[in-house]
């Protein structure tokens, strides 16, 4: 039995691309820093430690965490609630009652647009919730379904 609706596999690729871009920028900045550190003859040991930690961090962010998150990222709609699943290391399950939802919003960044994906954002009076990297059709359907359910729910 499928417990909840997962996001498509290519969402993971998008997350990896985005993380790779971020880390490329970080590495360029760090590289420039190292170059100047060499110029001012800073001892090598702390630089190596920093570089090593950064490398581990990059591998985690690009190689491991997107896959972990994809395995546990999605949503489920029941009669009165939206259930949201999110997590990499720590897994998070959220229940949002439909009558608490105040607005639903779709968002796309360039990476997501290219892969025809979208983020869905649910807002209650207290919090914001995200479902990241849904297929655009799926996202629009979800939005319409939510709005329809909301209307029914408010009439009760």
């Amino acid at each position, binding site marked *: 039995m499928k417990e909840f609706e997962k996001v498509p596999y290519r969402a993971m690729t998008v997350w990896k691309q985005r993380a790779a871009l971020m880390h490329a920028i970080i590495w360029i900045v760090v590289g420039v820093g190292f170059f100047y550190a060499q110029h001012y003859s800073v001892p090598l040991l702390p630089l190596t430690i920093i570089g090593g930690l950064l490398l581990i961090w990059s591998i985690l962010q690009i190689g491991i965490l997107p896959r972990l998150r994809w395995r546990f990222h999605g949503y489920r709609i029941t009669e009165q609630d939206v259930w949201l699943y999110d997590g990499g290391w720590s897994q998070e*399950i959220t229940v949002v009652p439909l009558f*608490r939802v105040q607005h639903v919003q779709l968002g796309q960044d360039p990476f997501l647009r290219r892969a025809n994906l979208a983020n869905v954002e649910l807002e209650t009076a207290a*919090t914001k919730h995200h479902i990241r990297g849904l297929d655009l059709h799926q996202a629009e359907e979800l939005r319409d379904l939510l709005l329809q359910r909301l209307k029914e729910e408010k009439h009760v």
Partner: protein
Amino acid sequence: MYNYRRHPLVIPMGAIRSLWAAILPILFSFGQAMRKGGEFSFLTNFGILIGLILLLLIFEFLKWRSFTYEWNDKEIHIASGIWTKTKTTVPRSAITAVDRSANPIMKLCGLVTLKLETAAGGKEADVVLSYIPNHLAEEWLEEEQHSQAAYRFTGKQLFLYGASSPATLVAMGAVIGLLSDFLSPDHLLEKKEWWKHQGLWLWIAGLTGAVSLLWIIASLVVASKYYGFTLERNEGVLTISKGLWNRRTMRIRAEQIQSLVLMQHPLQALFGYVSVRAHLTSSSDEDGSFDNVLFPLLKKRDLKSWITYYTPEYTLPLGKTPLPRKFQRAPIWRNIIITGWTLLLFFWKAWTLWITIPLILIAAGLGYLQGKTAAWDLTDYHIAFTSQRLAKWTAIIPMSRVQCIKTYTTPFGRQRGYSTIAIHHISGFIGHAAELSYVPTPVAKRIVSLYQLNRRKKGIF
């Protein structure tokens, strides 16, 4: 634009407040000038300062000229803005909280500052009318006569509250941090037989003295803010007034309260007191926290009667269920690991070695207390969590106020069967939640399903 302007006193007072906000850079630049010893540089600074004051005065004057207001039975109108003109209209029915304050200068001139909150969240007040005549404000607010049964503070309680207030602790922590950064005893500890050096003991004595002095000052400041605290209930409206120098009167609708938090600082626990705070839809308390103080101090045995009189929506948790024994020790290990990690970051400092064992013991003790006190309580109408960091707290959230429930599980938690449960409700702090860790996963699931059953039920009062 509209009929009324604020009192012109707002112009110098506004300028003074802006200057006070920039006091550090000003002092710094004067200090720099003094150090160089050049007469010219000092004079230049003085000239710049006077120019700055003039500019501020002109700016405040323009602000004062452009700010006009008016109100009638239904709405309040405000026009403001020097460059961008803004017109604000707030319907009176949308106002959820009113906050009046006046410092002695304003009292002398019969003036008052009104802060009006609407249900829109966030920390800042939505409408601020400063330096308006007192009689206008009173006429508009239709002040009721004081009711008989009111909560009041005695002098002894006031000082206990000052001494145990969270604001006091924050101030002390900041000073200890600053001191140990700028006047650190590192060079003394690196010597052989460091305990024989007088300097170190002097340093410790100095630190103790500075901390206790600060504690006294901070307690007095907090005590002056809460001087003459009264809380009255008039049908659905709670009125809080407090303050020695700046007298504030806040009016809150009781239905606006989203959750209650009972806090018990160790010092308060010693004398059998509890303080009660409330989360509102939008907060305006001045002590830097996002919840408002409802009762600064209450005797534990009186708690129930006061709370049921003032906020009948809330009942006290009756049957607390503690964590199962096998999870009670989990916070100890977590605290030890976190402290160890933090100390590893300072491995090259000489004091690390001497401080490690006591710090880890303290962390373990706090973890033990947290595991021991952590408990939950569920009724058809409420969810209540109790736990302890330094102070013991209990959060009571009505089912009908919950916005969403989150459950977190870490890999260890999944293996051993515990999770963290967070209950979100509306608060002045966006994203605030009451959290309880190391709850057995089946219990967390039961809390969620109970919530799904009872979320539309409200208690009968």
